[in-house]
């Protein structure tokens, strides 16, 4: 997985289907449909807990008005099915090549936006799901002389902010999915946008702040 990617990722057609499916399910487009298309919605698939009849209201097993560790525990129990479902779906999409498809679709846009070589694409795919693995791949790229020290910092600025965003978001995010006012996919897009903005802030910083401070010094070396 080191060098075979020179901008050319192989993505099977099913990968694109999987990616498209993921976008549908997490976009909430079909959440308010009455017909069978509702099946393509995360919250529909997640379903709901049975309700317990109270004297005046109905409750889920968490009840109402709890506090502290006990309330937190029951609340977390309520969330776990969503995390199981989300990571199950993500793994299917990933296993079918959907995340690679996503990167392939995005990389012609991302590359000029980040100003980094195409070889970084694979590290950035890994960054969707794992902080450490992706960072390790970036280090390797520097060691192989594929990218410079400053390019590494730009890539890492992209990776650090909202690192492993797919895994992290779907591991804890389901806590807010039920009452969040935007489709599940929107925060992901916002995170991606700001990852790109952040990397470019660092480029600007290099261009205007660091250059001026050490103009004439050894710059842009490989080490």
């Amino acid at each position, binding site marked *: 997985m080191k060098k075979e990617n020179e901008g050319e990722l192989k993505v099977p057609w099913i990968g694109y289907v999987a990616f498209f499916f993921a976008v549908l399910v997490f976009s909430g487009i079909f959440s308010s449909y009455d017909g069978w298309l509702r099946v393509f919605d995360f919250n529909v698939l997640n379903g709901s807990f049975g309700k317990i009849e109270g004297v005046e209201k109905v409750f889920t097993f968490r009840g109402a008005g709890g506090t502290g560790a006990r309330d937190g525990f029951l609340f*977390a129990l309520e969330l776990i099915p969503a995390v199981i479902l989300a990571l199950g779906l993500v793994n299917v999409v990933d296993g079918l090549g959907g995340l690679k498809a996503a990167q392939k679709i995005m990389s012609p846009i991302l590359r000029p936006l980040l100003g980094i070589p195409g070889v970084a694409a694979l590290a950035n795919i*890994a960054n969707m799901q794992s*902080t450490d693995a992706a960072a390790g791949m970036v280090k390797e790229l520097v060691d192989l002389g594929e990218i410079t020290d400053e390019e590494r910092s730009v890539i*890492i600025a992209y990776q650090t902010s909202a*690192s492993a965003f797919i895994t992290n978001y779907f*591991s804890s*995010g389901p806590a807010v999915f039920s009452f*969040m006012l935007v489709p599940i996919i929107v925060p992901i897009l916002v*995170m991606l946008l700001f*990852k790109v903005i952040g990397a470019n802030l660092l480029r600007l910083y290099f261009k205007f702040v660091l250059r001026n401070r050490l103009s004439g010094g050894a710059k842009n070396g490989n080490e």
Partner: protein
Amino acid sequence: MATNDDVIVEKKNILDLFIEGAQRGFTIGTTSLLPNVVMAFVIIRVLDVTGLLKLIGIVFAPIMALWGLPGEAATVIITSLMSMGGAIGVAVGLYTGANLDATQVTMLVPAIYLMGNPVQNIGRCLGIANVNTKHYAAILGICVINALLSIWFMRFILMFF
């Protein structure tokens, strides 16, 4: 919180893939999310019982007002410096306690991940990639800037929903 799974795609059937991911979801749910949420709820409880939550609400009100958020929202941002799951838990705890409404929680969601636990990331991302230490401050600063800008941006986006 991220797991080191293989990047190699093997031929597995869809059901196996789902089960594999679901097992990871169960593990993450029980070993990471649940303790984080319990911790967050206990923190909220401590802050609430001691009256510190009110105090934070008052002290941070002028700053958080810049984003159209109540002062209590500062606890979410502060927690996100140490734990994303914890920060989500705090946000939900404040939502349950009616300190934050759904709009305000929604605004904070991307910020929690963009902040992305810089305390851990120094080791896990910058350290592993062997980033030039002279760039550390800038990169970590960018995480904070990203997070704070995203709250405004979410506010803007929410106008369309």
